[in-house]
């Protein structure tokens, strides 16, 4: 049994310690927001937040996660990042969206006023096979404005 703290709740998970967090989220805990794209850290569809930073959950074994704080899109509530993705219509098929939102969320919590270069280099590891990157970047800029002017609240 490995105890995982996800979105503020502790889950006892009966899985092999080398199991990627992504599989546990989707197969054991029915949290299907994070997606499987490549399983190799090459697409970012599986991105979640661990201890405040964006990680590829497909490459993060649960053995690495006891005593750490995991956040997924299911626990985000109504973040300005989600609002901005909706307003900018930054999803086409939506497969990459949860990962994009989580990576942007982690960025803006650390750096509410990122430069264009910081936004681009941070988001570069998440791919959108529908090619909505320009809208995604617009959404991140918009969320930055919203979060930068409001006080960022972390759960």
């Amino acid at each position: 049994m490995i105890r995982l703290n996800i979105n503020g709740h502790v889950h006892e998970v009966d899985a092999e310690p080398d199991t990627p967090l992504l599989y546990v989220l989707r197969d054991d805990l029915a949290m299907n927001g994070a997606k499987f794209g490549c399983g190799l850290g090459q697409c970012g569809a599986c991105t979640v937040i661990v201890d405040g930073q964006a990680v590829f959950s497909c490459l993060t074994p649960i053995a690495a996660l006891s005593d750490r704080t995991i956040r997924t899109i299911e626990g985000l509530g109504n973040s300005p990042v989600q609002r901005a993705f909706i307003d900018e219509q930054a999803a086409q098929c939506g497969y990459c969206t949860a990962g994009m939102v989580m990576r942007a969320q982690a960025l803006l919590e650390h750096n509410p006023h990122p430069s264009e270069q910081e936004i681009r280099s941070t988001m570069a590891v998440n791919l959108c096979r529908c090619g909505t990157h320009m809208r995604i970047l617009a959404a991140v800029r918009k969320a930055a404005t919203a979060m930068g002017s409001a006080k960022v609240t972390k759960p």
Partner: protein
Amino acid sequence: MQAASKAGQPWTEDALADYLRTGFSAGHGAAAGPMTAVTEELASVPQADVHAMAVYVASLMPKSAAFVASAPGGGGLDPLFAGACGGCHAADAPMTRNGAPSLALSTAVNAPTPQNVIQIMLNGIPWREGKPAPYMPAFAAALTDAQVADLATYLRKTYSDQTAWTIAPADVAKMREAL
């Protein structure tokens, strides 16, 4: 240079020329960090010139075969390795079937200090826009200092017959600060 080469496989002129032009050698690993700019430039230099450089560098290296480290023996894989690294680096992972070297041949894993191994685990090898080049995801956010230290120690023990590394989490923290 002779003494400094800790390669699991001896470098040949052809292997060096490949590495210098493409940033990758199937028997040794990928060029990263400051070496990236060098191999990028050399990609557009006439092949004969790069070959001449390779001939010169190879002439400074030992001719006899260095040891060939064995693949990991029995026993289960470390769960951190299996879950974080195995998808690409385990025996028979798709990447190794596409010509990427076993970690046993990695220059970083066979180096005197764990610096390069820790560095690459933390930072990965970033995408190079529009260029075919080696890539590795960064693990700085996914793994704690203690986990990176354990993993590097495990790699050394499993894939190299050089002296074991003793790595403290504080050593990793120091390299992380430099990120």
